[in-house]
């Protein structure tokens, strides 16, 4: 079994209301020096395939479902 981490994040320039709202709230709790907070989604996918193939499969999953290329970019890391 191969475990891959699929990381889905917003493209540069796409506003992240959840991130900025969280930042505001963290600051209201007294946390100082926060430069930015960004939300990122990670899918941990376990596949019955060798590493190389698992990575290719996961990338295809991103293209077909996990990422919308208009607002998101993806990266796949084999553990």
């Amino acid at each position, binding site marked *: 079994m191969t475990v891959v981490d699929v990381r889905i994040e917003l493209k540069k320039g796409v*506003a992240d*209301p*959840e991130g900025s*709202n969280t930042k505001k709230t963290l600051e209201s709790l007294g946390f100082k020096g926060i430069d930015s907070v960004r939300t990122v989604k990670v899918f941990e996918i376990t596949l019955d395939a060798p590493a190389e193939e698992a990575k290719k499969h996961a990338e295809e999953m991103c293209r*077909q479902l996990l990422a919308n*290329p208009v607002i998101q970019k993806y990266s796949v890391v084999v553990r």
Partner: protein
Amino acid sequence: MSEVRVCVLRIEGTNCEDEMAEAFRMCGAAPEKVHLNQMSGKAPPELRRSIEDYDILALPGGFSAGDYVRAGAIFGARIKSSMGRQLRDFVDSEKPVFGVCNGFQILVELGLLPAAKETMEPSPTAALYNNDSGRFECRPTILRNDSRGRCRLVSQVPSGRTLAIPSAHAEGRLLGMDEDFADRLEDNDQVVFRYVGPEGEKAGYPWNPNGSKSDIAGICNPAGNVLGMMPHPERVMTRFTHADWTRGYTSEDGDGKEIIMSVVKAVKS
């Protein structure tokens, strides 16, 4: 004309199918609420349905599949995998496809909108992204029909007419791959509805509840038979759900009826 058959397609988490079906019934059509499993052969034989048997496909609002991954993404992918080819044929045969709210999000995730290059793009070419306000916006909105004739699903709504149709969504901001996206839609006459203020004027938040570029609330495909919109016309079929029904609104019908009636009339006899 014979009976207009409407498929109101649902899966788990869809929650506006009742009023969508009722709205079509009020316009003289024969709606049926159909679960996607009935289309994909996963249902008992007597419950199986086929998209070819319908004249209109309507995708209702809600939170299909819990809005997991992205709003509309799961429903879109499941439609693609279980009836993608049939749906493409349905659209190519110029039958009307109508999506409201989550239904619009599904059409975008499916690649049926804006679909500049082909009927059903292999991956999305637009996104309905989080509202600028960062929260769910449930409020009265006013739409102006800005279609110049391409969209066949608004034939009963005079050009430039404003309609009071409520919005209720968290992800309604239409985004494209580049800055010229909205201009291209406008040039191509794919912008059908824009959010406007009470006098029909350009107005910012909250009249545009999501910050959508160029105040776009609804778009159609280049062939004019697929319409997606964020606000809910099926919620204003009678005067009693019109935002101003106690303040001098006199019509018996709500503003949404003109839109649903147009969708029914878009069926070629």
